[in-house]
Structure formats: structure tokens, C-alpha cells
């Protein structure tokens, strides 16, 4: 029955619009045709973006056993909506199955808190927050001009709001730089040899990483990318083995 519905859908061009493609992908997923579901979601992701789309795409890849692609999709969704509970859960669940255990160096406690805040906020969140802080400052200004608030109290509240606004502005800038500078990627091959140079020779393998591991790309060369791990290990690997999260 599902097959008939799907055939009809495709025949009548029903599956050409985002909503239709999404529903088609969901039908494939429900029918446990994960490869077709993933293809449909991938096709849709070239037109539109939404965290739900990447959640579904990640699920389809996970069911296919494609750990690297699943993490890639969840990470894409996480960038759009870092506080989405289902995305966080699935991402953590799948990350736990990654073979490589890379322990980053410990940050100073305040730096760790700052990083956690930055990670859980999008640029849109920060712009919105700044807007509300501006409104707050405007209200204080109106109250002070009309003498409706004591000068001292007005000054204190004004100061607080100003500090918050400046902090938000700084975080926004930091986030923007992070988004625009970092070139992260996920390993999609089962196991990859990382080499000391972009040349395939037996003796230049420095370490080996596995599917699902997140890397930062620091340089590219024809068919090769230079990657650095969270713990600082660095080397070259074939570009086909990673899928980038943000365009290089």
C-alpha cells in the first residue's frame, strides 16, 4: 500500500514542494526505507533548512548504521536550535557510540561556563536579547527624563542594562567569528589514517580516527584536508572521508 502511495505521489509531482518532500521522507522512514528517507531529506535540505529536517535526516542515517552522517545531520540541526531537547538527546546518544574518545584539555571554570553559554545560544537569540535590553534602556531613559525614577536607582539599572548589553554584543561577535571562522567536519568513513603530509605513503601515518569523530579543518589541498582534533592532534586526511558542517 505504501509503495502505491509513494508511486502515485511521485507520478503526480506531489513530491516537488518542501512540505510534500518532507512528508514523503517521513513516509519512507515509517516504512523503514531509511535509504530513500535519507535521500529525500537530503534533497529537501538543499532547498530549505529546519532543525526538524536535520533531526529526521540524522535518524534515517542512524538507522542505516551511518554514524558519521547521522552526527553530521544532528550537528547541523544543533547549530540551528542548540536547545532542542530531542536533537540534544539523539546527538549525545549517537556520540556515545563513536569509537574515538578524545578528551579536550580542561578549561578554566569561567571559560567553561562562557563556552557553554555561547554554545547554547544562536546569533538570533543574542540579537533578540540585545533588542530587549535596548527597550529596557529606552524605558529607563523615558522614566529619567520625566523624573519618574530616582536618579540613583535609574543610574544603577541603567548601568546593569548597559553591562548586559555590552556582554551580549561581545558574545554575539564571538559567536559570529566562531561561525564564520571555524570549519568543522565529521568523519564519515569507518576508519581513517591521518598522515603527517598530504601524500599517501605507508610510513607517514601518525594516528587513526574513526567514524563520527568531529574535526576542525585548518587547511585544504587538492583532495586533502588538514585536520586538528580537540586534543591538539593534527594531520592530513583524504577530503572524501569527512563531511563539512560549514562551507569552507
Amino acid at each position, binding site marked *: 500500500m505504501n509503495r502505491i502511495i509513494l508511486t502515485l505521489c511521485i507520478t503526480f509531482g506531489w513530491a516537488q514542494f518542501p512540505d510534500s518532500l*518532507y512528508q514523503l521522507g517521513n513516509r519512507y522512514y515509517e516504512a523503514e526505507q531509511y535509504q530513500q528517507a535519507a535521500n529525500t531529506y537530503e534533497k529537501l535540505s538543499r532547498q530549505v533548512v529546519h532543525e526538524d529536517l536535520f533531526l529526521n535526516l*540524522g535518524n534515517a542515517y542512524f538507522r542505516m548504521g551511518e554514524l558519521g552522517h547521522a552526527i553530521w545531520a544532528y550537528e547541523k540541526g544543533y547549530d540551528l536550535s542548540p536547545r532542542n531537547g530531542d536533537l540534544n538527546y539523539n546527538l549525545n*546518544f549517537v556520540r556515545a557510540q563513536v569509537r574515538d574518545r578524545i578528551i579536550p584539555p580542561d578549561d578554566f571554570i569561567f571559560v567553561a561556563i562562557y563556552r557553554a553559554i555561547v554554545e547554547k545560544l544562536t546569533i538570533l537569540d543574542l540579537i533578540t536579547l540585545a533588542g530587549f535590553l*535596548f527597550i529596557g534602556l529606552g524605558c529607563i531613559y*523615558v522614566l529619567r527624563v520625566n523624573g519618574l525614577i530616582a536618579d540613583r536607582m535609574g543610574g544603577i539599572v541603567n548601568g546593569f542594562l548597559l553591562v548586559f548589553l555590552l556582554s551580549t554584543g561581545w558574545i554575539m561577535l564571538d559567536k559570529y567569528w566562531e561561525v564564520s571562522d571555524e570549519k568543522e567536519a565529521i568523519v564519515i568513513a569507518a576508519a581513517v589514517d591521518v598522515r603527517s603530509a598530504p601524500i599517501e605513503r605507508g610510513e607517514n601515518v601518525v594516528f587513526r580516527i574513526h567514524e563520527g569523530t568531529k574535526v576542525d579543518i585548518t587547511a585544504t589541498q587538492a583532495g586533502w584536508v588538514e585536520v586538528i582534533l580537540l586534543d591538539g592532534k593534527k594531520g592530513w586526511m583524504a577530503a572524501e572521508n569527512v563531511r563539512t558542517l560549514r562551507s569552507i
Partner: protein
Amino acid sequence: MLKRVSLILLFVGFLWGQVSVTASVDVNRISQSETVGFKIVATNADGTPNVDISPLLKDFKIVSGPAQQTNIQWVNGAMTSSRSLSWTLLAKKEGKLNIPGLNVNIGKQAYRTKPIGITVEKGAGRAQMANLFIEAKPDKEQAYPGEQVTVTYRLFTRLNLSIEDIEYPKSVGFWNEDLRVAQTVRFRDTQINGVGYKVATLYKAAMFPTQTGDLVIAPMTAICNVEKPSKRRPSGVFDDPFFNSMFRETQRQFIQSDSLKITVMPYPKSPPADFTGAVGKFDVVSWVDTPVVKVNEAITFKVRLKGTGNLNQFNMNTINFPQNMEVFPPTSSFKRDEFRDELTGELSLEYILIPRIPGEFRLNPVTLTYFDPAIDQFVTARSPSESIAVKPGDKSEIASTGINREDVAFIGEDIRYIRTQTPKWTPRGEQTIPIWVWGTYVIAAGLFIFPGMFSKVQSNRSSTAGIRRAKGALKVALQSLSTQAEDPFTHTAEVMYRYFQSKLFLASEHLDPMILETALMNKISNPLILETVAIAKICDAGRFGPEASEAKDTLQMQAGELLKQIDGELA
């Protein structure tokens, strides 16, 4: 050649002799407290004898050994070698004992020793062994199961000695609790039948019989090193008690206490159904930390059992708690009183109770049925019952199901399911900031801009109010004159004067024809001034007298025409 080899072999055989294995003891008649030396000698053996001594252990205890010794002797050019193993044995019982034949292996060869008979006489009594003995003394010889029998082991001596080792008694049919184990032996002086002794308590134990019948408490044995004066007595200048003390020898001596027989009697009556084996004297108390609680609040119910007896050998009777009260397993602690020879202590139990419905609850008394040997009766100790008032809680009450709840546990883990609702798509590469976010910035900007702008407009309006009034004066005046008033003289006068006030910026509120004439001088033509003054006078005349009544109907119209002409000239 063959003859030569045979001769050499004959010579070697003669030289080495035949291998023989013999067993011997140093003495055949001993008392039970004495040891016997047992030696196995292998003559002309080329290896160390390997002896299976397990048959010995039935009647003898090995005190020390085996000690190895090798001897080589040359007698008249013939060499004899012997390897010996020796043990020190202590007889376990009296009578005619037999050291059985033992299997000895030397290399691949097996030999067997001959059995040796030994007569063990009854251990020397206190009178015979008056210099050194251990006394085992129970506080009672008849007891009930579970009743404490305190046994004290004391060492009496008239010699200087040190204790090398003590083997504490292990008795079947008793649960044993150490009361005092001597870490260092401290002697004090005492007298028995007028003879001075040094006495030290070596060990004190509380023994609780676990079965009825005649039970035997095994003897305690100790190995002592007893000082004895040396037989080699120096002579000459060193023949002095001071120097003699330097040449004293020590002799190992094994002493053993008597076995004790304890008669364990059955209880005089058959025990009650709730009797769990407690024997002694006990007291039970229980209490709650708070008698008034709210629903779902925890109460601590404490039970303390205190007394003397076999505290670790029985269980408390099961406590029946009220329904609708959740009970968590208790925590227990036991505190033993170390300073008494009788085993005394305190067992504490702590229950956490959580009432699930409001009401008055009564906790049943905690009981313990025990046998008191002092009065030969079963006694039930009982704590007072406790009442608890449970008031309704702040939150909704949870009906008790009688089932202990537990955390929800994961059986298996999996990813969360896909989202099936179609979301609101954002075209790729066109992620925009929503309009309402921009709205916040617009509102904020408005809050900063509008107060300033408003005050500026206000001040501007107030500064140009006169000009605006002058500009609109004719229009206002004509509108007012177009409506027919009841008193046209007063109305016309008011309209005209208001017009001139606005137009000529006159400050005075009270105008009259004379002021008006002066104000209009050089501003408009004379005929118009005269006409204006004339109309003003008519108005005044009409307001204050009846002589101008014929102009009543046309006055407003005339005034309107006149004001139009004046406005034209003033412009």
C-alpha cells in the same frame, strides 16, 4: 675388563654400604605434659628422605620440626653418611600410644620405618607439676542453651619464664566471644596452700552453648621457655651468683589446661512461639522523633535493645506497622560494652516511616521474648506503644499501594523518533531576522527619540501660537459672525475685539473704540478706521441703550464685511 668393573663396583658398594632407614624416639615413657623427640635416620642415602608424617597426627601434635641434619664419618677408611629428620611431638592423650610405621622415599626408592610404642602417663597434677600449670575455670558447670559460661584461663608459675605461643581452645557446640586476650602477660603474686606463686590471666572467653548435652571445652595449650640454671658451672673467679645468672639456660616446656565439661540443660519449659533464642536479661525501648506529622513526611522510629546475654545470636521479633504507612528497611548498629565480663551491649534499629494518608495511627509495642536463667523463666520485654497523628499534607495525597516504589529504569536506549509535523521552512541561505525582533529595536529607538522630539514640538508650538492665532483670526471671526446671536451688539463687539487682539497682538483684555482707533492708526486707511470705530460705538450703544436698535439686523453682516477689508489691508 669386565672383572675390573665388577671389582670397582664391589669396592664402591663396600665403601658406601647399604641404604637403611630407621626411626627412633628419645624416650619411651613420658607424662602427658612432656614432649618426645622423634627422629628418622637414613644411612648411606644419596638424597634427602621424604617422609609422610600424616599417620602421626592422629595421636600426636607436632610442636616443632622437621629439623635436618647430615653426618659423614670415616672409620678405618670407610665412609658412613647419614641424613636425619627430627620432630618434637606432644601426645594428645594418655595411655599406650603407637608411632606407626611411616613411608620414607629417598629418590625413587621407598622404605618403611618400624612402629614404636610410647607410654603416656596421666599429666602431672598440680602437686606434681607444682612449678607451672594453667588453670581453666568456668563460672558455672551447668547452663542452658544460649546462657553465657565465662571461662578464665590463668597461668600459675614459680619459675621465670616467657610465653612463646598460646593455642586458644576451640570447642564444638559453643559460640565463642573473646572477653579478654592477654597481649602482654602481667603476673601478680598469689598463694596456694601457703605456697607463693605468680599468676597471670591468659585468656577469658564468654562461651554460649548452642546445643544441649554434655559439652567439652577443649584445653588451652601454651609453649613456655622456662629458665633453668646451667649445668656447666664456671669455676674460679667467675664462680659467683652474678656470673651464674649469665649462664642460665632456657628449656621449652609445653603446658596444657584441663578439658572442661559443661552440662547444657534443656529449658525448663517449652519456649513460647515468639522466642527467637534470646537468653539473658534485656530491655526494649522504642520512640518516634515526632508524634505529629503531615502526610508524606518521614518519621523516624527508633528501637533500642539493651541488655546482657547472647546479643548476636537472635533476631528481633517482626514489627507490624500500620497499613498505609510506607516502611523502609531499618539501619542497625551494635555497641558492645567492653568493660564487663558479661557480654553486654546495645542494639539500635532505625526505621523510616512515611504515612500516606491522614489519621491517628498507633505503633504496636516492640516485644522480645527471652529466657532469663536467673529465674529459669521466659520473660517478654515490651516497649510502650506509640501514637502518631498524621495531618493532611500540602500536596495531593498519594494512595498507598503497598508496593515499594522505585526509580524508572531504562530497559533499553534508543534515539528519539522523527518529527512528523511539517515545520515552517526557511529557504536555504535566506535565514532572516524575524520582523518582531526588528520591532524591539524600533520600539527602543522610539523610546529614545520621541521624548526629545515631543518636547521640541511643544516648545515650537508655544512660541508661534500668536502668529498662528493672527493668521486664523479673520476665519474665526467670520465663523462666529455667521451665526445669529440673541444679542448681536455684544456678540459683534466680542468678535471684533477678539479679532483685533489676535491680529494686532494686543495685550489688553478690555478694548473700547478709543483704544481701537489708536491701535489701528497708520495700519489701515482712515475711512476704515472711522467705520470700525463707528461700528464699535454702535455695538456699545446697542449694548447699553435702545437708540441703535435699527442696526440690529445688519450689524453682524456689516462687521464681517468690514473685517474682511481690514484683514486685506493688514495683510
